[in-house]
């Protein structure tokens, strides 16, 4: 389930981080799959390109975990789209993932640049 940057700067997304990125994206409001993909790309400075083959399974998985909920709505361009929104459980999950992530970054940074 690797998510790969498509261009020169390839980054292998760590296992499980896509879920966190999606939850992170959704904390600013409900969004549909297409926009979530674009948002991750934009927020990562075009470094992360999430493939549909990873994005949609991830969305469905998160929904099954009841961290996000979906409903069909009209988009700003008057198109029907499936909007996902964060649930209370999802918010909790996001904060726990955030703290875990910070810990991980700190740990890896330490390991890579020994004092």
């Amino acid at each position: 389930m690797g998510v790969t940057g498509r261009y020169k700067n390839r980054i292998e997304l760590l296992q499980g981080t896509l879920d966190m990125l999606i939850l992170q994206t959704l904390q600013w409001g409900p969004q549909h799959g297409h926009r979530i993909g674009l948002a991750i790309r934009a927020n990562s400075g075009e470094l992360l390109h999430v493939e549909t083959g990873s994005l949609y399974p991830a969305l469905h998985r998160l929904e099954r975990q009841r961290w996000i909920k979906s409903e069909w709505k009209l988009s700003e361009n008057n198109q029907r789209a499936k909007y996902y929104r964060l649930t209370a459980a999802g918010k909790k999950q996001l904060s726990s993932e955030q703290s875990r992530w910070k810990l991980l970054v700190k740990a890896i940074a330490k390991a890579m640049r020994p004092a």
Partner: protein
Amino acid sequence: MWWKAFFRRRQLEQELENEIDSHLAIETQQRIARGESPADAQRNSRKDFGNAALVKEITRDTWGRRWLDEIFQDLSHAPRVLRRRWKLTATAIFSLSIAMTLGVASLSVGNTFLLLPPAAAEPDRLVTIYARTAGGDAGQVSYPDYKYFRENNHVFTDIGAAPTSIQAIQTNWNGSPLNVVGRPVSDNYFSVLGIRPYLGRLFSPGDDTAKPPVAVITYSGWRRLGADPNIIGKVIGSSTIVGVTPKEFTGSLYGVNGDLFTSLSEDNASWLTQRDQRRLVLIARLKPGITRRQAQAEMRALSAGLASTYPKEDKDLTAVLTRATQLAPEMIPPAELIVSILLTFVVLVLLIACANVANLLLAIAVGRRQEASIKLALGVQRGRLIRQFLTESAMICAASAVLAYVIAAGLMARYSVITFEQPMAGAISVGLHMTLDATVAGFTVALMLIAILATGLAPALYASSPNLSQVLSGEIAVGGTRKNVRRNALVIAQVAACTLGLVGMGLCERSLYNLRHADIGVTGRNLVGVWVGPHEGASETQGKELYAKVHEDVSALPGVESVALGSLPLQSYNEVQAQLPDGGRKISVTTSVVDNDYFTTIGIRMLAGRAFSPADIENSPEVVVVNRTMADALWPGQDAPGKSLLAGTPLRKVIVIGVAADGKYGDLGESGRAAMYYALSQHYVPFITLIARTSGDPRLWVEPIDKTKRALDLGPFRPITIDDWINFSLLTERITAWCVAALSALGLLLAIVGLFGAVSYFVSERKKEFGIRAALGAERSALLRMVLRETFLIAGAGIAIGILFGVGTTVLLRSQFYGISPVEWTVLLPVTAAMMAVSLLIAYFSARPWVAADPLEAVRHA
């Protein structure tokens, strides 16, 4: 719930579809906004999205339950496959459903007879009570003892009673003569069973002595009389009908209900007070929480009390409890045996059917090796493929099971009321309430599962392991490969099972033949017998006069050579104790009361001494004739005539005047039973059989004798010839033989279908080989001979195995047959020859078209 999951799944599927469409639409719109042409935008957004089918596939995985998906795929795929091969499928379903119908039907019949009528409430708490004699025989209970048990026990809520005998009641119904079969029962009988009436009411306390007497008609009897809804209050015989039993209540103690339940008061009253007149079998309901063992202990104590209070009558008698069924206590073990034999046969037929279906599926599998190998090459897992094949056989089995269940249910409904003819008493309607209950449904499902595994696994394993290159290149399959071994094993099993079935049929028929030709101890063949008895309440003097009169009147009929009063062979007599005067040897003997002409009329040889004569009168010393077995048992090596012994209840001294040849007294299968004859002049009985020897075909005298007897008002029974009587006594054996024969015939039919299929496919698979052989100059007859030789070997192996099992079965069940040796050549040889002939014929006819094909065509298109 899986079906919810199923519908939810379709919804999810649809949503995913929409979601992807909407993704593409948004992307396209944005691309157009950026200035791409609509066509380009659409194409590029699709390209950008990637493999939509793959995305769907991966997304679906996150929903879980992929196996469910695959099962639905298999389930929708299987009917298409089966429809394409509908002939094979139909044959398979036909075979399996026949076998399963048999299974379902025989289990229901067994259920019906071995378990209590379902109409009874809480049948687990019902027990039958009978009196066991010192010799271990199941006997009846006297009315005074019954009353004692009823009043003094603490373990039953109540005890009901019914005589084991039935009554034939001759009456008029709507102006025409009618015979009905009546069963007297105690007035608490229905409340013990816990049965509610269909119409009117059932018996209640006080009905035992109601005047005029009341009766309850059975549902089947009510139907036979025209299902009159206003039957309550009408009079049948001398009893007023007060109610109708429910349809489900079809049997009670000692078999079927007959037509009418009468009250006990109908009978003559002497047995109601005498402790040595034992006529009743009891049915009792255990109090809640009391086990059968506790109840048995209590009954044993009560019997011991009775035995010490009334040593003359009740010594050595113990009240014994058994599970309450429709059968008499002593009938339960043989009935269980018969049912288990039948079920074994059913399983045998089922196995043949399974082998059939397995063969047919294997044949389908052969045709699908190409499909299988392509699928395997494309990366389908082998397990998945096996599951697909198993789904197909499961569908066949499920269809068969449903069909079998429906057919069986239809048969049960059709035969729920049977009217059958008892030759002497006339028509009896028998209600058989055969239910397809949970046990039977469970059994059907079990049969189905067995069938699925037995039929599906081998073909599935076979078809899923093809040698890819071999199949795709149309490689020649030469005989002797592993799969042929597997196929041959199936055919051998089938032939063996079928042979075993035929051996069973042969044994039954042979045994029946032996019984029909067994020596019944009488030389007379042109005999007609009829039960006669003076009307109820006639005195002994009146009875004797009537006997003399009927004797005289029948003797006067033209063509009647001789007339006697006594018993027909095979007409179970009274069993009494006999012992030497010094109290030494003690045996149980069967007794009969006969007149002076009996031995000469019926043709029983006197071996020593004399028969009864006019000199033996009421006041002269009581004399008896004994049979050889009895003489040898009591006085081995001595002359019996002149000896005396004690016999009967109570024991009385009698003198032996003659020894007669042995005969058959109870049933044709017995041998060496001790018997003793009393003289009618010294030993009046209110009921006897008149026997006439005629100068020609005895059937011609049935009518005249009937007329003569009717004129004297000697009861409702019809005369019967001795051959019909013997035939009737073989009813059980005939029914069993008929069932086994029908099952074997079905087995044979199925085996023929199976063999035909097996040989056809075996040959068709090798048509390329045959083509090449033919092209190289092999004669067609030589090819045919080759096929026949192989069939001979395979069938021979099957027959040998079947015969071996047959001999084993014979040894195990020999006691159930009559005059059968362990290796019964008269059965084994014909069966062997027939099976071999059938196999070779099938091989010939199924192989001929293939062998006759054009060799070049065969090679090209194999």
